[in-house]
């Protein structure tokens, strides 16, 4: 198994503002967590917070160690709840999209 997984992470619905105003990020994610388990979405979220997000307003992205309510996580364009939520094991070339819901009208 390679050391890193090359994946695409995207942010939309205003979340991009927390990530240097950039919607699309090419990420080389460590393929294993510190404890040796395969990298999951939960790990990716932690990784994004620690290594990618420069904004200090972490609470606008995570709450209680998972993405905050009002954010949908889409794994290759499907709701993560169809894929095992944060336990989904990330594969190379996966596209992970974080969508913050909009409320304006």
């Amino acid at each position: 198994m390679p050391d890193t997984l090359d994946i695409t992470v995207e942010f939309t619905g205003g979340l991009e503002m927390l990530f240097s105003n950039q919607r699309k990020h090419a990420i080389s994610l460590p393929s294993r967590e510190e404890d040796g388990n395969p990298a999951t979405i939960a790990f990716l979220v932690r990784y994004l917070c620690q290594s990618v997000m420069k904004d200090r307003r972490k609470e606008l992205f995570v709450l209680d160690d998972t993405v905050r309510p009002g954010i949908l996580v889409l794994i290759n364009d499907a709701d993560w709840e169809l894929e095992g939520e944060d336990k989904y094991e990330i594969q190379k070339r996966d596209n992970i999209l974080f969508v913050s819901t909009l409320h304006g009208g």
Partner: protein
Amino acid sequence: MSPTEDVDAYVLRLRRQVRAAEVQLRDLRRQLVQAEKQADEARNLNKNHDRGLPFAQQSKRLAVLRNIGQEQGYEGHTNGTEDRSQYARSKRRWPLRKEEYKRYGRQLIMPEIALEGQLRLRSCSVLVVGVGGLGCPAALYLAGAGVSTVGLVDGDTVEESNLHRQILHSTEKIGMSKVDSAAEQLRSLNPLVNYVSHREHLTPQIALQMFDRYDLVLDCTDHPTSRYLISDTCVLLQKPLVSASALRTEGQLMVLNNPPRAAGDVTGGPCYRCVFPRPPPAESVTSCGEGGILGPVVGVMGVLQALEAIKIIVAGIPKPFDADRNIDISTVGREEASDASAPTQDPPSLLLFSAYTSPPFRSVRLRSRRKDCMACSASATITRASLTSGSLDYAQFCGVVNPVSVLEKDSRISANDYDAQQSMLEWFRQTRGSEVYGAMTDTIVDVREKVQFDLCHFDRAINVPWSEILADDEPLKRALEDLSARRQITVVCRLGNDSQLAVRKIRELRRRGGAIGSVETDDSLVMDIEGGLRAWTRDVDPEFPEY
């Protein structure tokens, strides 16, 4: 495989082939009989035509007929076309009115709509909740398409800042109820549709009664509280829901509770709570007033809502299952379109629109109904009674952002007092020279976002956007580095909320020393303008732009 099994299989195969051939033969015979019959009819028709008389003789025949008719007392058709309708009228009733064929002709001739689709539209009542940026275009297209009734819900009045996107309203309608303004415009577009005005904000107490008479609901509102309430009501009444939202350059669209099955029926479409079981933290919710909105962006989403609504209506909306009578009754507009003949449902999806991304549209797959959903699962806790009694507090569920109030009253300066202070400084500048003035003057920190700062700002103001202050200490440190020790710092923003938080931040940085250096800790030197620039325009300078 043993030899006998082999032969058995062969026999079976032959039998199947014989059966198939017999079916085919029967079918061919039936076709032959039909074809022969048609050929006969065609021959007879031709013969009749062959027997046709020359025109002169035909008119003679008509004259003879007329004579006979008059002898028998027939009075019609004597003077021109007037009475011709007697024949036409007796012939048949057309399902649509003459003006409807004309008005809806361009969609009627499309196989996707056709006569049947139009009849379904004509018997369908749609409720549009929120007559703003989404509701205006959505209602326009639904009225244009010829639904039976468009219900409009909104408690607001038309404001000038609505007009760039809320296309049913116009300049002379400022101050008028949005619902009245919209209904007037829609009526002039299509008087064949009924318009029902609900000039009030939706509340849990009235939602069930209001929604009950409609077949389909459009959520065109702008806040999570109303989104949960509308979804819950639609689930309880088994109405499909087309939900959209927009902010800045992006929009989102979902068709929910479709098919609109009873709570606990897993074949029903997911509801808003299935997708978002928990509301977002109140402070993460940005309104169009705060974040901005591009007119065509919200317009696109409203138009798409109308489109989804038309698709659902034309496909046939199942009537809600009537628990009291225990029968499942047909569909709106057509009887046979019950479950069996209903078109296969698209899996639930969320459509994302982003004006500055290529490609601008993206559709993602959503989950189905949640097994523990509060609204639509077998273990649902939201009931008609809990809604009407008002025991469900949507505002509390979604949380409210209270107006920021972190500074004591004496840490703030009113717009009027600030004006007085500045006038006095100006007098010093004119009478005592700029040196004294320079030492006494304050530093104005405007913490609005740069694009807002660029719209209008105080002459001497420096811009340090609140979002940058939040992200990092450096911008503020850089901006305040060259401050002389005992200079007043005045912070201002649009409404006087962020400015309070910024004052607190600046005081904290000053106390920590750091880059600001030897500045004496003196909190009273740092203040904000109460009520922000809005108060400044209201109380001091009416010419200062308000946006």
